[in-house]
């Protein structure tokens, strides 16, 4: 299952523990240095698909400051998917960096 940037950072937001929807939105923004801004619609689309793929589990509803919340947590399969995606991106970045460094002298000349 391919992870797109919004899904990747939404899942990454839950690495440290279960979070509710709004907390996931804020954490994903922090982790991506503001580059990924999840909207409510895209967050819940991502969470529904992730729950369908058993990458995330949803807890019970509770009230916090008059707001209805539910915590979402990564499953072992979710952590594995996240790890595979980060390794894939790291490998892709390494391959490009190696070529960029190797050709830096040629370009400069």
């Amino acid at each position: 299952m391919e992870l797109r940037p919004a899904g990747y950072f939404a899942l990454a937001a839950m690495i440290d523990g279960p979070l509710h929807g709004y907390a996931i939105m804020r954490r994903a923004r922090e982790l991506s240095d503001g580059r990924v801004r999840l909207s409510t619609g895209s967050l819940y689309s991502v969470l529904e698909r992730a729950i369908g793929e058993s990458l995330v589990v949803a807890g019970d509803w509770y009230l916090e400051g008059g707001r209805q919340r539910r915590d979402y947590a990564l499953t072992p399969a979710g952590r594995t998917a996240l790890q595979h995606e980060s390794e894939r991106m790291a490998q892709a970045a390494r391959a490009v960096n190696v070529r960029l460094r190797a050709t830096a002298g040629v370009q400069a000349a």
Partner: protein
Amino acid sequence: MTRERIGRLVLRCFPHQARAQRGREMLDTMLDASSGSTRAFAFEAASLGFAGLRERASAGAKMSTASLVAEAFRRATVIWIALVLTVLLHPRLQSHWRPPHVLALLIPAVLICWVLGYRRAAGVCGIAMLTAGLERRFGSLGGPGSPLWCLLAWYAIPFVGFVLMVVGHSPPARALRGRAWLLPLSAIALLFASVDAFGILPGVLIGLSALTTVGLLLIAIDPRLWIATALVWTATGVYLSAMSAAQALDQAQVTDVAILLAWAAPTAIALTHAQAGWRRRAARQRGI
């Protein structure tokens, strides 16, 4: 209008089940995410509405084509009944023909049972109605030379629809809002039944065209109404072709249009099947 009220309206874009399950949670998250900024609220509301429509569309794509067509047959039958009621209530017909009492009871009974969610009862009433002799009345519309198979073409869809209502899966009866599409249909039917400005057949066709337009507008979200109207057009086309072949109508005027109409349902079903397949592939490739 408060933000919460606007949010509740936006949530209506989601299917009923999703709304009942996590509507409150999504609304509260949206209000948190957009607090303090009207622009952020507009963005969040639009995003939530779009996600809801996409979820509705993907729910439709998960249904098999057979289930879609079966449900469309049931809806086509309800449309057919409403059109028959329109014809029977039309002033021109009222002046020289009154339906037998049993039909006057059974036709509204079908519609009421359907609206209240009692599909099996609607199906039983419908089959009783068909066997109670409505075909005799419509047989006379085709003239004495009208072949039996003209009538069979016209009655095939409601017959299949009523049988599917009786034997098919019956979802639990819930709020009447789920059958809200019947309201514009009823309004159109009553309008054409009470106004004598149109002939009987043109009035019915205008009503069906209006409903088809609604079905086409909803096609990306739920194609069942579009298929249902296409089924009624096909029945009309096959009926007119058969009548034309039996020389009860002027062939030159009717044949080309009738043949086009007869292809409406096969085209609608084939396009919906292709669209569902495309959506399933897109959903698989889309990732998370």
